[in-house]
């Protein structure tokens, strides 16, 4: 096990080297110059040349890259070039990261809380109308484009709707269900988190439901479930203790892998709802060619990915005794 972990950790620097090299090259040689974004229409060739020189952008690529790596190894990931001029990239990410992680955690909890029971029911009632309905809803959830859900859901929940039933001569209004959708970000304990988290959780719900359904179907056809039933156990016990535990093992794996995605925000959602997270930072950085930010984010995601994989492999054994003791 130790050797396995070590091997994985040794692979990390190699991965980081290649990723950083590629992103750095895209930043340096890619089109669009951050200084040009900074200077906008008032770009003065003299100014551009001076800034390039002072930033060291006129140096050969390998020197620039080495400088970057040297600084990065000392914990200095550069300074924002355009978007938050002169702010240390590390500090910017440190501000955005908790927001995104919190939002993603809420989304994952929503996804688990909705997806697992739905998958459980669908799996238990395989091929019944309720199974069909659940699968339909779940697939609809991931089929609705975010760019469509954003405006429609905000419209639905954040304003007053006057309902008129002319036939019955009825007229009433439903006030905004989520008035807190607007205003600035207040952390995950404000109502503002609900819509973005819900939209982000749709994909997770789909994954969880599908996995849980397939898992339940598979597990329920296992011999040991029949054994459990033959013991006269309550169906509840059979499902909760015998079936669900086995069906949840792959769910745990997926969850572990999702932990790697915690650090990446959905910029479509964050942008629309004004969530000051990583997604928005990445979006702004990409558009502004603020490539030190982009690079740091890319490296962060890579590290998170490697570690989440490692953690999954290690904890997998804890969940499944077959692997634990093997």
């Amino acid at each position: 096990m130790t050797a396995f972990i070590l091997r994985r950790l040794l692979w990390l620097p190699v991965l980081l080297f290649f990723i950083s090299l590629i992103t750095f090259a895209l930043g340096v040689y890619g089109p669009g110059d951050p200084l040009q974004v900074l200077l906008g229409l008032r770009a003065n060739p003299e100014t551009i040349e001076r800034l390039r020189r002072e930033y060291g952008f006129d140096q050969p690529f390998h020197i620039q890259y080495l400088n970057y790596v040297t600084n990065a190894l000392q914990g200095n990931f550069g300074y924002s070039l355009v978007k938050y001029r002169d702010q240390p990239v590390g500090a910017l990410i440190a501000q955005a990261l908790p927001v995104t992680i919190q939002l993603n955690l809420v989304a994952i909890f929503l996804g688990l809380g909705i997806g697992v029971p739905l998958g459980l029911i669908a799996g238990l009632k395989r091929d019944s109308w309720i199974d069909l309905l659940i699968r339909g809803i779940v697939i609809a959830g991931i089929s609705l484009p975010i760019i469509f859900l954003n405006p429609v859901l905000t419209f639905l929940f954040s304003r007053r709707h006057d309902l008129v039933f002319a036939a019955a001569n009825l007229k009433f209004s439903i006030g905004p269900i989520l008035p807190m959708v607007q205003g600035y970000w207040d952390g995950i304990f404000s109502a503002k988190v609900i819509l973005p988290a819900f939209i982000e959780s749709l994909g997770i719900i789909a994954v969880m439901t599908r996995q849980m359904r397939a898992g339940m179907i598979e597990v329920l056809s296992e011999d040991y479930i029949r054994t459990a039933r033959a013991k006269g156990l309550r169906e509840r016990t059979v499902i909760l203790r015998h079936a669900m535990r086995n069906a949840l093992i792959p769910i745990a794996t997926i969850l572990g892998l999702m932990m790697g995605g915690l650090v990446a925000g959905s910029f479509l959602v964050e942008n629309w709802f004004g969530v000051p997270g990583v997604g928005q930072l990445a979006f702004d950085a990409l558009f502004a060619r603020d490539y030190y930010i982009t690079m740091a984010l890319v490296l962060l995601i890579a590290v998170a990915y490697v570690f989440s994989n490692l953690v999954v492999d290690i904890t997998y054994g804890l969940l499944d005794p077959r692997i634990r003791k093997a």
Partner: protein
Amino acid sequence: MGTLLEVKDLRTEFHTQDGVVHAVNGVSFHLDEGETLGLVGESGCGKSVSMLSVMRLIPMPPGKIASGQVMFQGRDLVKVDDEEIRSVRGNKIAMVFQDPMTSLNPVLTINTQISEALELHLGMTKEQARKRAIELLKMVGIPEAEGRIDDYPHQFSGGMRQRVMIAMALSCSPQLLIADEPTTALDVTIQAQIIDIVKRLKRELGMAIIWITHDLGVIAGLADRINVMYAGFVIESASNKELFGNPLHPYTLGLLGSIPRLDAALKSKLTPIEGLPPDLIEMPKGCPFYDRCRYRTEKCANENPALELGAVRHWVACWHWQDVRKLRKQ
């Protein structure tokens, strides 16, 4: 001895995308207390399904018990509510399955799996159940039972797991043990050990046993009576001695012919039955064995024979059992 279990005209169907599979087609038999009944037939003949139907363990849907009665201690197990059938399962009737490798839950300890039935049916506390579980493991011959009680199934060998299964089945001292090919997945020496254990425990505990197998050789040393099944029908039913000494159904005859016998090994070659069982979705209206039968006539194609008495306590479902007996004697 009184009757423990009486099955009358049991029919089980599976509703699949391809059509209705008629797995069990009006099986009737009875079992006395302490009796050992062998249930014999090829794979897919409905022997397992009929027993799963008795315990109502058929997956529903797609399965469905279409009709019939399963009388057990004065109750019709087909009709009782879920709560009641559960109080029977594992308590009065227990079951041991074919593949010990997959029949134990991989993520629960042996203790949990044995104890849960004890706690449920006998109302034991955790400690009592654990003590009893250790006793049971000792009873089925698992060495160092105390040390192994908290192990997981994958830490046991196949034979040991089957012992655990038996211990689990016997935990509540059932009146009836249904053993669904418990030795098929094991190698020969282990098979013998398991059979010995079951024999010994039957002597000690006195429960009735229904032993399902496709291997007449296994059943010969075990059963008091044997039911032969084919395509969802019981086609012959007789005592152990009678069946082996006086088989009346062509299919039974074929089965007996396919057992390698030490004394006959040199003289006659093995004669497996040619052909395949009928399509259970589109059942032939006549005798199900028609296609493969050496004695078939026009009548066999059109009418399905019912069980009739062919000898003392010996029932057979064949239009031509008399011919079979004659031919066999020649």
